[in-house]
């Protein structure tokens, strides 16, 4: 048993180093591509490299913080986080011809959380939803980034129409039980997209929360729950 535990630790340490080291060749490729020019093919290559680099960084951030018990939390506006995620996903959505809608309340309130972790998790979920829309025949492909107040605090999430939803509660639970076992735990997702969701889950582990399915009006999606900050809400 001790040996098995040791093997597992070695594997995660190796993967951490691997993820860190993979960034350098990807940066090299990104710069060579940028030097070549700016046509559509080169832009696609650069976007794919950037997406992979962001996935590696999100993984490394999650791996570093997953076991931390003393994460430094700060008051963050869920609306501002949604806007920041939308800004980061703008180019990605454009590449997939997907309309990005930001739905946030006008009044500004605050939640106590880790900005970088939530932003990385939200962006990862956003990429999965945007990419999933490419499989839909509709000309009106759109993804909504929303933040809203709930009974216990705030929720921040990514939504799409019921018809274009690729992950429901059952699929999410089944995929969680198959991580590391099945090559494609989310059967409805394209290759490579599952890891975005698991990296988002790993990131949120450090905040003792996880992704959950939710509905908002006629839309369905995946959300992250945030804890409100009473003092700052009063201010």
């Amino acid at each position: 048993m001790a040996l098995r535990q040791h093997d597992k630790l070695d594997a995660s340490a190796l993967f951490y180093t691997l993820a860190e080291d993979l960034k350098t060749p990807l940066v090299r490729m990104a710069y060579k591509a940028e030097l070549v020019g700016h046509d559509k093919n080169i832009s696609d290559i650069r976007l794919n490299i950037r997406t992979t680099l962001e996935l590696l960084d999100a993984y490394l951030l999650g791996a570093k913080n997953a076991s931390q018990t003393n994460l430094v939390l700060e008051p963050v506006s869920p609306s501002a986080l949604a806007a920041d995620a939308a800004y980061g996903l703008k180019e990605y959505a454009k590449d997939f011809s997907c309309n990005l809608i930001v739905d946030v309340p006008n009044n500004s309130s605050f939640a106590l959380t880790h900005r970088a972790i939530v932003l990385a998790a939200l962006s990862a979920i956003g990429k999965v939803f945007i990419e999933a829309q490419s499989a839909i025949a509709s000309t009106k492909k759109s993804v909504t980034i929303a933040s809203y107040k709930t009974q216990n605090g705030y929720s921040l999430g990514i939504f799409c129409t019921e018809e274009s939803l690729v992950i429901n509660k059952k699929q999410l639970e089944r995929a969680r039980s198959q991580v590391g076992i099945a090559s494609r735990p989310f059967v409805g997702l394209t290759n490579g997209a599952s890891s975005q969701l698991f990296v988002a889950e790993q990131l949120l582990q450090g905040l003792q929360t996880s992704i959950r399915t939710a509905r908002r009006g006629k839309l369905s999606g995946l959300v992250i729950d945030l804890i409100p900050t009473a003092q700052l809400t009063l201010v």
Partner: protein
Amino acid sequence: MKSKNILLLEPDKSIATSVKDYLALNQYVTSQAHTAEEAIALADKGTYSCIVMELVLGAHSGIEFLHEFHSYGDLAKVPVIIFTSQLMQNNNAFNNLGVKEYLYKPNTSLLKLLESINKHVNNS
């Protein structure tokens, strides 16, 4: 007219070549150093309008290089752009070392680097 000489301290030869070639397309002349020692030797001989440097170096840390570089009176005024693959949560270590900007390589295109150089060269 401002001088357009850049001192690039970058241990990765492929990245250094890409940066140099890109800057050359934009009328900058780049002197490349792959180690802190090479950078100090180049700084001693030439005049630069900006220094672009990686923090993760072979034998030295980039911070050590910055301290040494900053101790040379006439070089202390040259703007420094940190261009690194090291993700830092806080940049307090760079205070008072002439660092004008911190750019994280995986998030930074060559165009963004050029825009930063232009800004600091023109403001210096």
